[in-house]
């Protein structure tokens, strides 16, 4: 069982290696990288291409580690007991399983996506150490221990908002998704828009990379923004000469897809104005 990318997800050799190492050794894989480089998509594609079930756990700032395991709904149990509902005696009926529990129960090996782990409290990763290591936890309410039937593949993404604790890092494989270079990017775009004209693609990529190279830009456009932009260009049926002519004189057409920051747009307008005056 080897992961080598999919039809709609272009990978690099080092990413494949990291994923395969994590699968073989049954250790978590931590993925970092600029926003919009496909970190979250990786888990979805891995699950799809290897035919494994996927359980997603999206982290918010208020998420606690135990939310991933289970939650005991004491309030509805109390209410039901007042109403004399059936099954109140069975505490199991009031335990909501979290994504990790579901994954542990799975007969086949599953993929668990822990998305944006850095959003949570700074101690959150430490609270998960035991679960990640032994792939088991105990349910306090029922005094039972849930052990993974098949150790799931954990794919954890981080946006680098907080630094993660060393103890947590030591247990993971690590991969940093680098911003794709021109030829990888060409492949990625072609996967999404197979019919795109080569010339248009080349011009669009030129504009895109020159935009990323501008010093002092606040939010660099990323892969997903490039794809949005190309989609717009195709829908509006803008031809490559128009992009080219525009790029040297003014801000690119439909720039709204690429520049998401008011200051960036302003800076660009200023630069364009200067180049017009000189030209």
């Amino acid at each position: 069982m080897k992961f080598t990318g999919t039809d709609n997800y272009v990978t690099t050799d080092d990413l494949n290696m990291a994923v395969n190492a994590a699968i073989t050794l049954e250790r978590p894989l931590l993925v970092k990288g600029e926003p919009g480089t496909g970190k979250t998509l990786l888990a979805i594609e891995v699950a799809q291409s290897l035919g494994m079930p996927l359980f997603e756990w999206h982290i918010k700032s208020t998420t606690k580690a135990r939310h991933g395991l289970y939650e005991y709904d004491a309030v509805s149990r109390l209410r039901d007991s007042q109403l004399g509902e059936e099954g109140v005696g069975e505490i199991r009926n009031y335990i909501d399983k979290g994504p990790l529990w579901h994954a542990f129960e799975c007969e086949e090996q599953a993929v668990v996506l822990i998305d944006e782990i850095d959003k949570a409290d700074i101690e959150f990763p430490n609270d998960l150490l035991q679960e990640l290591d032994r792939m088991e936890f105990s349910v306090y309410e029922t005094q039972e221990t849930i052990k993974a039937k098949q150790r799931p593949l954990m794919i954890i993404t981080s946006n680098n908002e907080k630094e993660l604790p060393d103890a947590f890092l030591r247990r993971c494989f690590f991969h940093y998704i680098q911003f794709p270079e021109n030829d990888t990017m060409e492949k990625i775009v072609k996967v999404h828009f197979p019919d795109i004209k080569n010339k248009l693609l080349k011009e669009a990529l030129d504009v895109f990379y020159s935009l990323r190279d501008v010093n002092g830009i606040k939010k660099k456009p990323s892969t997903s923004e490039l794809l949005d932009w190309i989609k717009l260009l195709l829908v509006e049926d803008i031809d490559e000469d128009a992009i080219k002519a525009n790029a040297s004189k003014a801000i690119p057409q439909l720039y709204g897809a690429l520049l998401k920051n008011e200051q960036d747009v302003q800076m660009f307008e200023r630069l364009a104005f200067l180049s017009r005056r000189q030209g």
Partner: protein
Amino acid sequence: MFVEFFYELRDMKIPVTIREYLMLLEALDKNVCDANVDDFYFLSRAALVKDERNFDRFDQAFGTFFRGLERRSAEFFDDAIPDSWLRAVTQRMFSEEELKKLEKLGFEELMEELQKRLEEQDKPHSGGNKWIGTGGTSPFGHSGRNPAGIRIGGEGGGGSATKVWKKREFRNLTGEVEIGTRNIKIALRRLRKFAREGAADEFDLDETISSTARNAGLLDVKMRPERRNRVKVLMFIDVGGTMDPHVKVCEELFSAAKTEFKHLEYYYFHNFLYERVWRDNRRGRSEFVPTWDVLNTYPSDYKVIFVGDATMSPYEVTEIGGSVEHWNDESGAVWFQRMIEQFPDMVWLNPESQERWPQTMSTQLIYKLIGGRMFPTTLNGLDQAMDTLRKRNATNLQSIRVH
């Protein structure tokens, strides 16, 4: 077999542990990678390095170990060629007009141009062994024989993975953070004081049980608000002048503080506190807030943190009209005293190294004014400062209880 490699990495100050080394061996044992160097490079990087900032150093260590390269001598090659140095060379090589034209290009293109220019040069620069040139044995330049050479432009790597670690793609990510934001946050965390406030959305088991019992067994669900961090902090940050070298530390401290407290207000001042401060540093000190307003706005349970190097002329602290920026009708010391009276929990964080405090008269003055509650911006200093802020609070509470 790879023990030496492991120590090579540790020598390069990459924080690898035995656990990670064993993980790598286990992966090799399970045939995760084929017997070729590229695969091994990818696998060992994924297993041993957990921070993209260390990728560059890993590449160097990998190169050293597997190519049997001489470790580059520290003083010369410490961190490849600094960009500034290359830029300086560029300036020597091009005329001013050309430079202006080139400025529009990115760094990469600039280097390409530089290389072209170097190729056009007279013979003596080619085949030399000292400086940038072509075909020489110098570590810089291209087509040279030095395997550790830094390629400037040239025909590029052609995408072959064998050279990945030689390309040192991750150079830009290397960054030494002495006290990382994580450490600062952990220190600031000591200040946390939890209290329940806001919407009641958490189930209160104990209260529900006792209330239900009092209700003769009829269920009476009680909810309570979630515990939240209730520490309120005012930060005053010195900007400009002598503080410029410390900007980075302050920014880190600030970004850490921002996420750690629910109530955090911040003001800026220049050198010392006078009758006015400002809120938005970018606005160029045009919108002032009178210090009286600050004193009257915030209740005295706010904790106050001053950040400043306390390095100035002593007159700026003690004298009327001592400020370097404007005429102040009352001396800084008077304003500072008012602040101390309003906010009993107050510390001063000083990014200047502690050894230099006794030599600076103004630092000594402020140190005395604040009653010794001045701390360096090291981790220890932060810890002590937070302890002080917390403990003073505890003693205050005790004295209230006694009365």
